[in-house]
């Protein structure tokens, strides 16, 4: 009984995609190529990109920066959350000063400041991405610390008084699900918003390639890069984020 509606749903879903592609193809026919290239040239360029060592190198540079930034943002955000949780007099410093400022700081502000302060390159881009990602990690991990199972920690205390041991054996494992959701959010934000860092302060990376294609009015390459980012994003989510969640979420 449930099989038929699911198939119809799927059919309509793929139908929507097909209609969108046809509409794209039809409107591209009447528009100049630099405004809207058709789906076929974009697809061809997308395939060419994956065979092009220059693009692969730039995609690798961006991916590497995203991964390093997420790791650093998790570490710094986590350290801030633990500081606010563990040292009572620091709670207000983190919650009422550092968090609101980082959270409302415009991402382009970081990008411009980094472009002024640092030489174009990896360091500037990673600085900007980390600065943008920290509040997302901080908020999630602070939430995790707030929801820690007090009774479990108390039980831990009845076995040992060593704070470090309790932290490693209890607090950290209990934080893993929140760390994972922070990673997931940070991963999305990194590819969607933090890429702006590469527009202003980098001689490499997909953001730089996008800007170069856009200034040259090469819409075909530009759109192909946009879709390449979508593919990289989805691949990373399927291959890294989801397996990690499956492995650790229910411990």
């Amino acid at each position, binding site marked *: 009984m449930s099989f038929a*509606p*699911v198939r*119809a*749903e*799927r059919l*309509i*879903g*793929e*139908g*929507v*995609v097909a209609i969108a592609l046809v509409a794209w193809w039809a409107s591209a026919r009447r528009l100049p190529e*630099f*405004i*809207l290239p058709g789906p076929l040239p974009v697809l061809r360029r997308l395939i060419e990109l994956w065979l092009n060592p220059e693009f692969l190198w730039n995609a690798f540079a961006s991916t590497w920066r995203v991964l390093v930034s997420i790791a650093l943002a998790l570490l710094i955000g986590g350290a801030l959350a633990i500081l606010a949780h563990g040292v*009572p*007099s*620091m*709670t*207000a*410093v983190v919650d*009422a*000063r550092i968090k*609101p*400022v980082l*959270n*409302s*700081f*415009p*991402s*382009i*502000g970081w990008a*411009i*400041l980094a*472009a*002024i*302060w640092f030489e174009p390159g990896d360091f500037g881009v990673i600085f900007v991405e980390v600065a*943008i990602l920290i509040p997302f990690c901080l908020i999630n991990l602070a939430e995790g610390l707030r929801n820690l199972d007090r009774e479990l920690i108390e039980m831990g205390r009845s076995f040992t008084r060593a704070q470090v041991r309790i932290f490693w054996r209890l607090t950290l494992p209990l934080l893993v699900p929140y760390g994972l959701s922070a990673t997931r959010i940070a991963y*999305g934000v990194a*590819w*969607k*918003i933090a*890429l*702006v860092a590469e*527009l202003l302060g980098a001689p490499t990376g997909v*953001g730089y390639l*996008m*800007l170069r294609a*856009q200034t040259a*009015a090469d*819409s075909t390459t*530009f*759109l192909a*890069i*946009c879709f390449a*980012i*979508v593919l990289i*994003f*989805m691949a990373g989510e399927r291959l890294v984020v989801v397996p990690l969640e499956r492995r650790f979420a229910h411990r």
Partner: protein
Amino acid sequence: MAVTGAALAHARWRGIGSQRLAAHLFTAAFLALWEAASLFTPSYLIPGPVLVATRLAIFVTSWRDLGHLGASLFHVASAIAISFAMGSLLAFAAYYAPLLRFAIERRIGPVLNSFSAIGWTLLSIMWFGVTPVTVIFAISAVLVPFALVNMSAGLGNIDREIIEMAQSFTRRRVPMLALVILPSLYPFIFATLRIMFGVSWKVTLTAELFGGNAGLGYMINLARQEFDTTTIFAAIIIIIAFVHGMDHYVLGPMQAKVSRHYAS
């Protein structure tokens, strides 16, 4: 009993007092550090706090600068309105027509969700040129998935039993929507708007910087070209103050009130 109560209150007061003290000390230390850093670096790298404060004073009295803030507000407000309407429409379509659910949740949603903000911005510059339309289009495109995901979550969370009860009173769709479904969505609507407000500011400045002819992002871009770092700092501080102020003093209390009222 009274003694312990007073002692407890005193201890709590001291706790809060020391927290406040620490926060103010932190602010003071940060300002001192900033001042010290500005002494050793040229002002186009790090302008000192006094310089930035003077620029801020000029900002809030200059109609031209306030005009840029107004333009940004206009961009944010229109984009939130458009994308909220679009996202809710998609969410309601998936809710009322289950056949469309796969198309919306597995095809339209993920594609919109993984398309980068810069992609939308640069693309809309090619399509619409450097105009307010570009900025509003780019922000809306980024915000639609947020509205879609949150409103779908809201619709998924509606209490089935309440709907069943309402169905025993009426079969008409419109009163059902107005009296049962919308009120149970209120907390989600506010949460959605609050998230969208936060995200929109992160995107708006980027869109204005690349494709706008007014707004704080445009102002930052002009200042960048003239190495006027003081103005950049002032604009960033205005944005932080505005975004945090709205979120903390307006949207937060409003959301808390609505959730208290409508949560079961």
